[in-house]
C-alpha cells in the first residue's frame, strides 16, 4: 500500500483496509449547547475498537444514522480521553436533524478519525491564538483542552470566541476552567441582549488588539469570510499567513479522497484538510463558488 502523501494523516488500520466500515457507538450523554446545537458524548460499543481508537485535535468522524445518512463532524473532546467522543452538532440537515431526535442510550454508527490535525506541536514555545466564529469552536475544543493540559509548553494561550448573539457562544460554562489552566478567554457577540456584560463586535477586532504577534500562531475556524478577515487582522499584528491555520468545511461522502465532493481547488478537504495552513488556501478563499 502506498503511504499517504506528505501533509496527510495516515488512516487507522481498519479504515485503510475498508474505509466504509462503521462502528456502533452509544450516545451516553446529550447537552444543549446553544439554540439548535447539542453536544453528544459517544462511546464506541466494541471494546477492542474503543481501546484502539485515537484521534488528534481538529480531526473529525463520519457519524452515520442508518437509513438516513452520514455527516462529517469534528471531535470536540479531549484526545487524552478517546473512549468518550464529544461531537457538537447544529441541526441543519437531514442527518443532523435526525440526530437531534435521538436520546441518551441510543446507538448510532461512526467511522474515523479523518483529516489533518491542528499543528500544536509546531507552535510549542510560542503564543497560540485560537479564534472561533460560532460553531467553529467545536473543531477547536480538543485543541484547547490539549493546550490546557500542556500549558507549560506554550507562552500566551488565548481563546477569542465570537457569536452572533450571546446564546450562540459555545462552551461558555468552561471559561472558568480554561482560565484556571492559564488560558486567556475573550468572548464577543455581534448583537448583545439585556443580560450580556461582555464585548460587542467581531472576533477580528479582538485579533487586531492582540499586540505583538511575531511569536504567535493562529488557529481559526468559522465561516469562509470570517477566516479571511481574521487572517487579514492577524497579518496586521505581525502574524503572517504561514502562521495562521484554518479549518475548512465542505460537503463530504467518503472522507478518504474517493468521492470528490469535498474538493477545494487542488485539495481534498477530507485528506489535505480540514486544517490548512492559510497561505495554501488564501487565494482560493478569495474566489467565489470554488
Amino acid at each position, binding site marked *: 500500500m*502506498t503511504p499517504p502523501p506528505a501533509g*496527510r494523516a495516515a488512516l487507522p488500520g481498519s479504515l485503510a483496509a475498508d474505509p466504509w466500515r*462503521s462502528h456502533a457507538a452509544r450516545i451516553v450523554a446529550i447537552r444543549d449547547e446553544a439554540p439548535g446545537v447539542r453536544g453528544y458524548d459517544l462511546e464506541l460499543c466494541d471494546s477492542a475498537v474503543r481501546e484502539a481508537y485515537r484521534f488528534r485535535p481538529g480531526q473529525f468522524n463520519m457519524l452515520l444514522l442508518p437509513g438516513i445518512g452520514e455527516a462529517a463532524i469534528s471531535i470536540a473532546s479531549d484526545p487524552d480521553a478517546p473512549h468518550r467522543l464529544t461531537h457538537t452538532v447544529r441541526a441543519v440537515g437531514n442527518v443532523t436533524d435526525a440526530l437531534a431526535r435521538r436520546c441518551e442510550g441510543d446507538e448510532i454508527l461512526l467511522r474515523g478519525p479523518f483529516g489533518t490535525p491542528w499543528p500544536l506541536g509546531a507552535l510549542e514555545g510560542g503564543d497560540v491564538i485560537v479564534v472561533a466564529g460560532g460553531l467553529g469552536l467545536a473543531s477547536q475544543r480538543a485543541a484547547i483542552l490539549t493546550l490546557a493540559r500542556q500549558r507549560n509548553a506554550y507562552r500566551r494561550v488565548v481563546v477569542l470566541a465570537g457569536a452572533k448573539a450571546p446564546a450562540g457562544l459555545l462552551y461558555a460554562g468552561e471559561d472558568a476552567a480554561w482560565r484556571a489552566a492559564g488560558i486567556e478567554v475573550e468572548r464577543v457577540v455581534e448583537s448583545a441582549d439585556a443580560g450580556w456584560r461582555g464585548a460587542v463586535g467581531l472576533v477580528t477586532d479582538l485579533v487586531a488588539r492582540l499586540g505583538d504577534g511575531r511569536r504567535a500562531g493562529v488557529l481559526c475556524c468559522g465561516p469562509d469570510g470570517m477566516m479571511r478577515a481574521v487572517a487579514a487582522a492577524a497579518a496586521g499584528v505581525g502574524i503572517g499567513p504561514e502562521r495562521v491555520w484554518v479549518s475548512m468545511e465542505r*460537503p463530504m*461522502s467518503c472522507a*478518504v479522497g474517493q468521492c470528490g465532493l469535498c*474538493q477545494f481547488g487542488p485539495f481534498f478537504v477530507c485528506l489535505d484538510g480540514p486544517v490548512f495552513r492559510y497561505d495554501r488556501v488564501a487565494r482560493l478563499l478569495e*474566489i467565489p463558488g470554488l
Partner: protein
Amino acid sequence: MGPPTDTAAPLELGPAGLDRLVCILAETHRVIGPTVADGAVVLREIASAAELPVGWIDEQEGGRYRLHADASAGPFDHVVGPFSLKNFLFPPRETVALLERGAEGWRSRPPEGAPRALAVVGVRGCDLAALAIQDRVFLGSGHVDPAYQARRRDLILVAVDCRRAAPTCFCHSTGSGPAACDAGAGRVADLTLVDLGPGPAGSAAEDLGIEPSAARRFACRAGTLRGAAILGRLRAEGLAGSLAPADSELSAAVPRATAARLAARGPGERHLDTEGLRDLLFDRLDHPRWDDVAARCLACTNCTLVCPTCFCASVTEIPALDAERVERERRWESCFSLDHSRMHGRAVRHSTAARYRQWLTHKLAGWIDQFGVSGCTGCGRCITWCPVGIDLTAEVAALRAPPPASEGGRA
C-alpha cells in the same frame, strides 16, 4: 497479472481464433466487449466474437455520434463509444456497506458476494491509461476501495491498437494512444491485438495499402504470463500460428500510421496543449471564458458520465421495508449537479460557470496535485457526448489567451 513478458513473439490469430479467445475467457470470466446497442457501440457482456460490431462504423464530432453500416469495418475499427472500463470497475451503483440491526444493535459489514471476475476485450490505449488513473484513485492514496481492488486483481484485459481516430480523439496530446502500449510502461494488457485486415476509409489500413481482399487476421501479443498462457492454449489448439515477418512489421506499422494521422492534424484541429496547463488553469480561475462556456453548457453531466476517469460519487441509504437492514449504495455523482456541492442547504458552486470551472480545473490541474497525473486521456468522449458540442480542447485554448485587462471574470 504476472510480470510482463513482452518479448514473446506475436502470433497470428484468424477469425476462428478470436472467437475461441472469447470462449476461453468466458470459461472463468464475465466477458465484456464492444457490441452494437441503442445506436452506439457500447460495452456489454458478450458470449462470442459474433457480437462484436463487425460491419459498423462510428462517425463522431462535437455533440454528434452516428453509427453507419460499413461492410469494410472489422470488429475493432470503431473508435471508443460512451462506455469505458469505468462502467465495470467503478459501477454506476454499488453497495459499499451493509448495515444490519441485530440483538446487539446496528452493525456495519462489507457487502456480500464476490463479484464475478471480468475480462474486457477491445480496450484502447486511452482506456488503459484511464484505468491506471483510476488505480491511483481507488488503490493508491494510502487506503483501498476493497471492491475495486478485488475486480482489478482478477481483471483480464485484451487490448487493441487503434487503426482509426475519430475527429474527437486527441490521445496524441495526452500520450495515451493510439497503440495500447502508449498508455505507458507497467500498464501492459494481458493480450494486445492488431487487426491486419482491410479497413474502412480513413483507417491506418488504407494508409498502409492493405489489400481489400485480405482475410481478417490479427497479430496477438502477450503482455503478461496470464496472457501468454491463453495464447499458448490457442496455439496448442491450432488457432494461433507464427506470424509472417511482413505481418509482424505490419502489426507495428498500424498504430504508427494512426499516430501519424493524428500528428498530421493542422492548427485548429483537436489538440490539447498540456504544457504548463496546471499552473495556467489555477491562475485563470477568474477568466471571463468560464462565463462564456457557461452560457452554452447545460450542466447535464454527460461529460462526467462518459469520462473514463471521473470518479465523483455520493452514498444513498436504501433501507429495507422493515428498517432492520440498510444498504449504503454509492452512486456516480457529477460536479455539474447542484447536489455535488450542497452544504447546509445551499450549493457552494451555484453557477454553471463555477461548476464547469470545477470540472475542467479538476480534470486537467487539480488531478495532478491529487494523483500526480492529469485526469484526461484524450479519449474525446466528453466532446462527442456533450449535447451542445463543448470541446475541452477549445476551452483550454481560449483560457490560454490572457483575460482582457478591463474585464473581471465572475463565477
